[in-house]
């Protein structure tokens, strides 16, 4: 597959294009918020509280006079940050475990996979709630709690994909040439399962964003004055009768971000794994 054909196929894949556009928009919002927002997102301005959308405050203000548009932009930053680190934790440990399971076989493989199965059967958000409740609410603990649950997902996906690669002739040849299991895993298996891992990472990113929003909504994630979509929703819920619009914008932002990531994941799967495309 040359880059040329990948690009031309990408241009003809609506899932990929829409997904990339939405994800690009959220990343742009997050990046923009680090250098510019219409107002400082944490600035309290009680005399101007609960203003409707206008030319001065595009999406209005909340009960403390925060500019909603600025808070939404800054909230994108928290979601992206949590997603990247939580998925990073999953990739780092999960891929290592998955590769170890596929290379070692036998008892080690069984043990790693049974642990992963257990984590799958367990309500992930429930343990995340427990962990953040015990170690205290906050973004860092939310990231760790969400990241832990990415580990078995990546372990499982890595092992399944790696098992497919390990039976190929070039791996046998590498083994015959005297390469050890670690060298084979890094030099031959990893590059060949990268596309599967990229697709999974996109999906887990979407799940991480949803989990962060849920934890922050419950008061266990981002804490004031840090702007976060989940916290905005929890505050908006108290003002549902006075200012219902406050509950609409952060929710739409979450939907667009997660929709974008899911579409991007679908698109990438079509582009990177043509065998699956034929089945859909």
């Amino acid at each position: 597959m040359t880059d040329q054909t990948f690009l031309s196929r990408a241009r003809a894949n609506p899932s990929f294009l829409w997904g990339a556009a939405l994800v690009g928009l959220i990343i742009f919002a997050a990046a923009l918020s680090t250098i510019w927002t219409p107002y400082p997102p944490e600035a309290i301005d009680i005399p101007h509280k609960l203003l409707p959308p206008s030319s001065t405050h595009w999406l209005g203000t909340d009960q403390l006079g925060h500019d909603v548009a600025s808070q939404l932009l800054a909230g994108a930053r928290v979601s992206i940050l949590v997603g990247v680190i939580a998925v990073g934790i999953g990739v780092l440990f999960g891929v290592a475990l998955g590769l170890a399971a596929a290379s070692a076989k036998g008892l080690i493989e069984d043990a790693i996979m049974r642990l992963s199965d257990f984590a799958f059967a367990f309500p992930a958000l429930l343990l995340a709630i427990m962990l953040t409740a015990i170690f205290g609410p906050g973004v860092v603990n939310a990231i760790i709690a969400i990241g832990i649950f990415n580990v078995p997902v990546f372990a499982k996906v890595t092992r399944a994909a790696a098992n497919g690669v390990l039976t190929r002739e070039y791996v046998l040849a590498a083994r015959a040439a005297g390469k050890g299991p670690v060298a084979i895993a890094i030099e031959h298996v990893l590059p060949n399962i990268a596309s599967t891992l990229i697709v999974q990472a996109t999906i887990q990113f979407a799940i991480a964003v949803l989990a962060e929003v849920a934890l922050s909504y419950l008061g266990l994630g981002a804490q004031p004055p840090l702007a976060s979509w989940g916290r905005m929703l929890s505050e908006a819920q108290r003002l549902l009768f006075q200012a219902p619009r406050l509950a609409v914008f952060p929710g739409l932002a979450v939907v667009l971000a997660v929709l974008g990531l899911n579409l991007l994941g679908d698109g990438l799967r079509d582009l990177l794994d043509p065998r699956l495309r034929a089945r859909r």
Partner: protein
Amino acid sequence: MALYLLQRIVLLLATLAFASIVIFAVMEVLPGNAAEVMLGASATPEAVAALAHKLGLDQSITARYFAWVSGLARGDLGLSYAYGSPIRTLILDRLAVSAPLALMAMALTSVVALAAGVTAAARRNRPSDVAIVAVSQIGLAVPNFWFAIVLVLIFSVWLRIAPAGGFPGWSAGAAPALGALILPAIALGLVQAAILTRVTRSAVIDVLNEDFIRTARAKGLSRGAILWRHALPNALTPILTIMGLQFANLIAGAIIVENVFTLPGVGNLIFQAISNRDILVVEDCVMLLAAIVIAVNFLVDVACATIDPRLRRAT
């Protein structure tokens, strides 16, 4: 089948044991002594020590773990520090709200997802299929608690035809109680239906490409008979498996949605217990929810093996 069942039961017990160890270990690292928290900062060290002894906190970790697990096995969940009442009664009271909510949501998910998924598969690439796929794609991106807030906005704030939250209790009669659970069940169920719709659609499409469907068509069976009597039953294995896995999400979702509607369910009990440092209640609730999820997945595995005998050889 007997051997398969035995293997599965051993695995079920091992998973339950592992879950109990994880939950106990996580709660053990909770900062602060439960006795100190209960008695407050002004308590004398002697009083704290006496209460810790009464609660069994001065015993070794393994002794406490086995005391807890054997209590669970006997149905004795211990006493709540904060409420001073048996945890079993507390949980049963809350389950009277959470269990009907989860069942209503799961029923809604199944009906909507099977109908939409089979319809989409039968009309593949036609406008109705494209619409169903598009709606389910958006549904996947909607947080269930935000959908719950939107439902409150529409039905309670604007139309004023449903309560914004609260639970009248079953003593007020079945109709008002079920009425209070309808919006939460829709919020939970419809979002869950999105993923199941997609799984159903692709599973039925796979089956529709099989030879026996061509034979059924050649025999002159109606489209409906082919879809519902031949295609759907053969597509059930992946659908059931995903339903089992989704149950964990449903339970977690229920905890949050209960919070939106201020329902006095198990989720609400967990949050109260966390803020009260009522460790045993948290442990028992989380273990109960984990056990329900693990048991549901066990039943799904057995059901799949009953439907598809090939799966019995898989392990």
